[in-house]
C-alpha cells in the first residue's frame, strides 16, 4: 500500500464527508420546511468552513479557495423544478449579502439554468423559472468597488482575486440574466421581469445593449407586455444609442382602449410624455397621437380623463403646428365624415391633421364637473405654461370620490318634483324594466 494508515483514515473521512454533503443536498428537497432550512444552514456552514480550511492544498498564492462545487449543491437544492421554493429562497437571502457568496451563486445559477433547460428541451417550467426569478431578482449589486467589503471568507490576497473586482461581478450578473431570459417565460413572469428590468438589472450590466433583443421581442408582443418593455427600451435608446426603426409607429399601435384601464397607466403615460416631448417630431405624427388618444378617451374613466386632457394640452403647446386640430378658421363648413382614419397603422397615413378634436368637445359634456371644465380649456387659446401632469398620473377613482365627498357645500339644492314612490318618476326607466318583487 502506498498510503499510510493515517492517510487511509483521512481518505475514508473525506468519503464520509462527501456522503454527508450528498445526503444534505437530498434533504433540501424534503417535505418539511424545517428540515430544508436546517440542511440549507448546515450546508452553508460547510461552505464557510471549507472556504477557510480548503480540502485541496493551495498550489500558489492567489488561487481561489472557495468551494464552488459545494455551493452548486446548495443552489441546485434551492431551485427545484416542480415546486415553489420561495420561502427557502427568502431564507437564503441573508447569505447573498456576502460579496463572494453572491458572486459564486450567480455563477452557479447560470450553470444550473443551462443544465436544467438542456434536460427539459425548452419546455416551459413555470415553477422552476419562478424560483430562479425569486432567487435572482432581489440581488443587490454593489455600485462601487469600494462597497464590496463584506466577504464570508477572509483572505489576505483578496485585492488580487477576480471575485473582488466589480467588473467581474457585473460580467457574471449579466451572463446570468441573459441565460435566464434566453428561454421563453410565462406571461406573469414576463411582466414581473419587465417591471424590475430598468431599475435593478440594466444599470448593473456591463453591456446593457445585449438586452436589446429581449426587449425588442417583448415590445413586439403587444398589450401590457409591450407597455412594460417600453421602459427598458427607453433606457437603451436614451443612454445607449439604440436605433429602433419605426419606434413611434410601434408606440402608436400600442394605443388601444385598454391603456386607460390598465394598472401600468401611470408608467406608460410618463414614458409617452417623455417620448413626445421632443420638439423635432413631425406635426403629422403628434397630431395622429393626439387624435388617437382623444378618440380612445371616449371610453376612459374620469381619473384617466383628468390626466389625458392636460396631457393633450401639453402636446398642443409643444407643437403649435397641431393647433389646427382645435382651431381651423378657414376649413370646410360641413363634413359628413371625420377625415381621421382610426384603423390606419401608419401615423402619416391617418389624416389626423385634417381632422378636428370633436372627441374633446364631446367630453365637455362629461358628467364629472372637473373633466368638463378641463375639456372646456381647449375652447380657449392655451396659456404658454405647460401643465404639470406628474401629479395626475397616479390619480385613482377613489381619490376622486374622496375629494368630492370632502368638499363642503354651502347649500344643498333639492329635487322639487314630488316623489311618488321608488320608481314613481315621470318616464321612469326602472318602471319599464324592473319590478318591485
Amino acid at each position, binding site marked *: 500500500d502506498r498510503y499510510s494508515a493515517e492517510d487511509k483514515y483521512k481518505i475514508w473521512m473525506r468519503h464520509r464527508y462527501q456522503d454527508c454533503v450528498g445526503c444534505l443536498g437530498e434533504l433540501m428537497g424534503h417535505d418539511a420546511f424545517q428540515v430544508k432550512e436546517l440542511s440549507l444552514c448546515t450546508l452553508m456552514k460547510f461552505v464557510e468552513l471549507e472556504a477557510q480550511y480548503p480540502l485541496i492544498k493551495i498550489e500558489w498564492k492567489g488561487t481561489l479557495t472557495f468551494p464552488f462545487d459545494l455551493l452548486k449543491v446548495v443552489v441546485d437544492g434551492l431551485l427545484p423544478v416542480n415546486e415553489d421554493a420561495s420561502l427557502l429562497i427568502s431564507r437564503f437571502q441573508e447569505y447573498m449579502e456576502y460579496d463572494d457568496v453572491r458572486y459564486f451563486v450567480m455563477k452557479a445559477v447560470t450553470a444550473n439554468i443551462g443544465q436544467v433547460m438542456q434536460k427539459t428541451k425548452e419546455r416551459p417550467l413555470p415553477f422552476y423559472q419562478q424560483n430562479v426569478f425569486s432567487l435572482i431578482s432581489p440581488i443587490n449589486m454593489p455600485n462601487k468597488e469600494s462597497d464590496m467589503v463584506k466577504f464570508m471568507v477572509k483572505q489576505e490576497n483578496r485585492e488580487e482575486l477576480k471575485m473582488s473586482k466589480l467588473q467581474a461581478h457585473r460580467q457574471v450578473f449579466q451572463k446570468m440574466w441573459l441565460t435566464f431570459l434566453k428561454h421563453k417565460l410565462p406571461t406573469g413572469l414576463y411582466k414581473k421581469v419587465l417591471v424590475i428590468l430598468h431599475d435593478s438589472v440594466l444599470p448593473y450590466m456591463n453591456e446593457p445593449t445585449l438586452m436589446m433583443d429581449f426587449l425588442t421581442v417583448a415590445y413586439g408582443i403587444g398589450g401590457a407586455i409591450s407597455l412594460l418593455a417600453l421602459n427598458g427600451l427607453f433606457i437603451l435608446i436614451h443612454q445607449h444609442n439604440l436605433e429602433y426603426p419605426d419606434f413611434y409607429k410601434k408606440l402608436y399601435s400600442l394605443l388601444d382602449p385598454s391603456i386607460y384601464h390598465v394598472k401600468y397607466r401611470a408608467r406608460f403615460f410618463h414614458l409617452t410624455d417623455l417620448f413626445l416631448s421632443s420638439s423635432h417630431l413631425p406635426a403629422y405624427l403628434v397630431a395622429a397621437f393626439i387624435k388617437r388618444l382623444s378618440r380612445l378617451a371616449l371610453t376612459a374613466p374620469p381619473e384617466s380623463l383628468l390626466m389625458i386632457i392636460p396631457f393633450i394640452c401639453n402636446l398642443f403647446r409643444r407643437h403649435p403646428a397641431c393647433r389646427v386640430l382645435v382651431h381651423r378658421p378657414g*376649413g370646410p363648413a360641413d363634413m359628413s365624415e*371625420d377625415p381621421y382614419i382610426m384603423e390606419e397603422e401608419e401615423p402619416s397615413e391617418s389624416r389626423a391633421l385634417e381632422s378636428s378634436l370633436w372627441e374633446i368637445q364631446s367630453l365637455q359634456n362629461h*358628467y364629472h364637473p372637473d373633466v368638463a371644465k378641463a375639456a372646456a380649456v381647449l375652447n380657449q387659446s392655451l396659456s404658454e405654461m405647460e401643465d404639470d401632469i406628474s401629479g395626475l398620473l397616479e390619480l385613482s377613482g377613489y381619490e376622486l370620490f374622496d375629494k368630492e365627498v370632502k368638499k363642503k357645500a354651502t347649500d344643498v339644492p333639492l329635487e322639487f318634483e314630488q316623489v311618488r314612490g321608488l320608481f314613481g318618476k315621470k318616464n321612469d326607466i326602472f318602471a319599464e324594466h*324592473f319590478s318591485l318583487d
Partner: protein
Amino acid sequence: SNPFEVKVNRQKFDILGRKTKNDVGLPGVSRSKAIKKRTHTLLKEYKEREKANVFKDKRFGEYNTNITPEEKMIRRFALERQQNYGKKNIYNLNEDEELTHYGQSLAEIEKLNDIVDSDSDTEERGTLSAELTAAHFGGGGGLLRKKVSSGQEDEEEEKPKSRKELIEEMIAKSKQEKQERQTRRESTLELTEKLDNDWKEIQTLLARKPPKSERKDKEVEKPKPDEYDMIVRELGFEMKAKPSERMKTEEELAKEEQARLQKLEADRLRRMRGTNEQAEKKPSHVSADDLADGFILDKDDRRLLSYKDGKINIENEEEEKEDEEEDEEGGEEEDENEEESEDESASEDEDDAADSHSDLDSDLESEEEDAGNKEEKKHKTNENESQTVEELDPKREAAKSELPYTFAVPESYEAFKSLLAGRTIEQQLIILERIQKCNHPSLAVGNKAKLEKLFGFLLEYIGELATLDLPELRTIDKLVLPLYNLCQMFPEAASDSVKFILRDAAHDMEEVIEVKGRAALPGLDTLIYLKITSLLFPTSDFWHPVVTPAFIYMSQLLTKCRITTLQDVIKGLFICCLFLEYVSLSRRFVPELINFLLGVLHISLPKKQAQGYTVVHPFTPVGKNSELLLVCDKEDLESWQKQNLPLGIVTRLKETSRTEMNHIRLSCLALCFDLIKKCAALYESLPSFHEIMHPVRILLTQHVQVNEYPEKMQEWYHSALKELETKVKHYTPLICEKKKPVPLKQYTPKIVKVLEFGRKQASSKKEQERKQLIQRHKRELKGAIREIRKDNQFLARMQLSEIMERDSARKRKVKELLGSLATQEGEWKAMKRKKWKN
C-alpha cells in the same frame, strides 16, 4: 405766559378730531431748559476735565437700591448710635432720668393705657363708671375708693395690693364687662334674625289671607261675572274683521303653481350649466338713499323699554316668568302689589296669573281651578290634533284606533326599529307622519336635531329592508315619501347622511380592491340608496354635494367590479339605468355606461374571433365569463316573453330553474337593447356621437345573429339599431373662441385709495414696520446730530466767555497796575517839584 414768548405752529388745514402735540412752542423756555441741563452735565464735565480727584459718597447704602429708604435710615441711625456708644457727653445732663407722675413711670402708664370704646355701648352712653373715672382721672377716685373699701376689708390683705395691681384688676373687670355686653348684643341679633326667618316662613301663609272679615266683604263685592259683561268684554277683545285677500280660483292657483315650477326649473337649468352663480344672481334692491355702507335696517330688534315692579325689564319673557317666581319668594311688598293688581284685573288674567303662581299658591281653590284648566287645555289640544289628523287622512281611521297620537322621536336606531316593528306599511307611514307632526321644529328647540336624526334612522331602516332575504321593496316604495318630506325640511342633514352612506360603501369597495385586487358589486341596499339619491336631489346639477360623489361611485362600480354571475349583470344593468336616469335631463356623457353595455352585449355572443371592437375592464374578450348571457336553448328562446326583472332576484337567484334563468338572460338582453336605444337618443347631439357608438354598432351589425332571436327580441334589436343608424353624420371644424384683446399699457397714474391719512401706505405689515423703523432711525440720527452741534455751541460759548473773563480780568489788572504806577510816578514828580521849589 408771555404771548411774545409763544411760537404758534400754524397748520395749513384744520382737521377735526386730530390731536396735535406741537401746535404751540415755547422757544425761550425750552432753550433755557436745555442750557440749564447742559450746565449741569456738560459744563460740569468740562470743568472737571483735568481733575484727577474723585468725590466719593460713603454714606451707608446710598446707591443700594435693594434697601428701602426707611430701612436705610434705620440702619444709618443705628450706625450713628453705634459710633456714639460709650462716648459720654459731659454736657448732656438729663439722659437717664425718668419722668413720673404720682411716683409712677409715665412710660409704663402709657403702655397700659386702654382706650375704652365708649361708643360701642349705646345703653350707657354718656355715663361714666367709677372704674373708668378712676382709670382716666388719676388717683383721686382711687384714693377715695380705697378709703371706702379699707373700712371693710382687712388691712393686712389690702396693704400688699399695690396700686399697680389695683389698676390691673380694674382693667380686667372692665374688659370682662365689655365682653359680656358684646355677647349679649350678638345673641339679640341672632334672635332677631331667627325671628325674621320664622316670619318669612309664616309670612307666605299669611300673605294672601287678609283678615277674615275683609275677605268676606270682598267676596261679596265680587260676584260672579255676569253673562252680559262677559260678552261685552269678549266683543271688546275680539279681532276686528279685516278685509282678507280674495280666495283664489283654481286657475289662479294652477297658474301660481306653474310659475313656481317654472322658477324652480329655471334654477335647475342654471345649476346644470354650472355657470358662475354669483354673477347671475340679481342684485338686491338698492334704495336711492342707501349710503352703501352695508347698513341694513330690516328689523328693529331693540326692546321696548318696560318696567316691572319698579325695575327696568330686561330679560326675555321666559326669564321673566322665572323672575316672577323668584320675586315672590323675596319680599312681601311685591306679593301684595301683585295681589292688588290681580284683584283689579279681569278674570281672564286671573287664570294666567294663577297659572304662573301655581307652584307657590297656598290657596287651595285656585290650585284646583288651575288643575282643571290644565286638563281642559290638554283635552282641547288633543282634540285639535285628532281633528287635523282626521282632516288630513280620512282613510286611516281604521288604523287610528290602535295607534297613539303622539310619538317621541326615537333616540336610537333600535328604538326606531322597535317602534315600526310589527306594523303594516300604512301604520308605519302614520307613525312617521305623527312623529313629524308632534316634533315639528317650530314647536320646540331640540326638535330639529331629533328629526334630522330620524332621517338617518329611516335611511338605515330602508337599507336593512333591502338586505333582507326577501327584500321588502314595497315598503321601501312607500317609505320614500316621508324620506322625501324630511329631506325637504333638512337638506343639509339629509345630504350629510346620504354622503356618509356613499362614503362608507366606496371605502369598503376600495379596501376590498386593495386586499384582493378586485371587488364584487354591492348589495341591493346600495343600489336602492343610489336610486333614492336621484329622488331626493336634482341629478342634473353641474356639481352637487351628493350627486357628484354618487356619479363617481357608480362609475367605479361599472369599471372596477368583476362581472361573474347573472346577478352581477342585473346589478350592472340597474346601475346603467341609474346612470341614464341621472343624466336624462342634463344629457351628460357617461363613457362607462357605453362600455358596460358593449360588454353586456359581448357576453351574450358565442365565442368569436375577429371582432372589430374592444371591450374594456371589467369585461375580457376571452375568458371564463365571456358567455354569461349566451342562450342556446331553442325552446327557451321560443317561450320567452319580455318581463320586468324583479329586483328581489338579485338576492335569491339560485332556486330558479334553467329555463327561468335563460328567460332572465333574454330579458337582460332586451333591457340592454333598450338602454342602447335610449343612450342613442340621449347622446345624439354630441359631436362625436358616431365614434362613441361605433363599437356598439359594429357589434350589433356584424356579430349578432338576429335571426336566432325570438320575434320580440328582434323588435328590440331593430329599434335600437334604427336609433343608431338614422342619426346624420355632421362635423363642423372647431374654432377657438376669440381671445380678448389685451389692453395696451398706458401711462395713467396709478391711483391708490388713501384709507388713513398721515400713515404710509405700504403693502404689507412687515414692509410698513420696516419703513417705520427706517424713519425712526433717521429722525433719531438727525436729533443726535443736532444735539451734538448744540453741545459744541454751548461749549464754545462757555470757552469764549471764559476767555473774555480772563482777558477782562487781565485788562483790569493791567489797568490797575498802570494806574498805581501812574499815581506813583505822579507822586514822585510832585515830590520832585516840591524839592525844586524848595
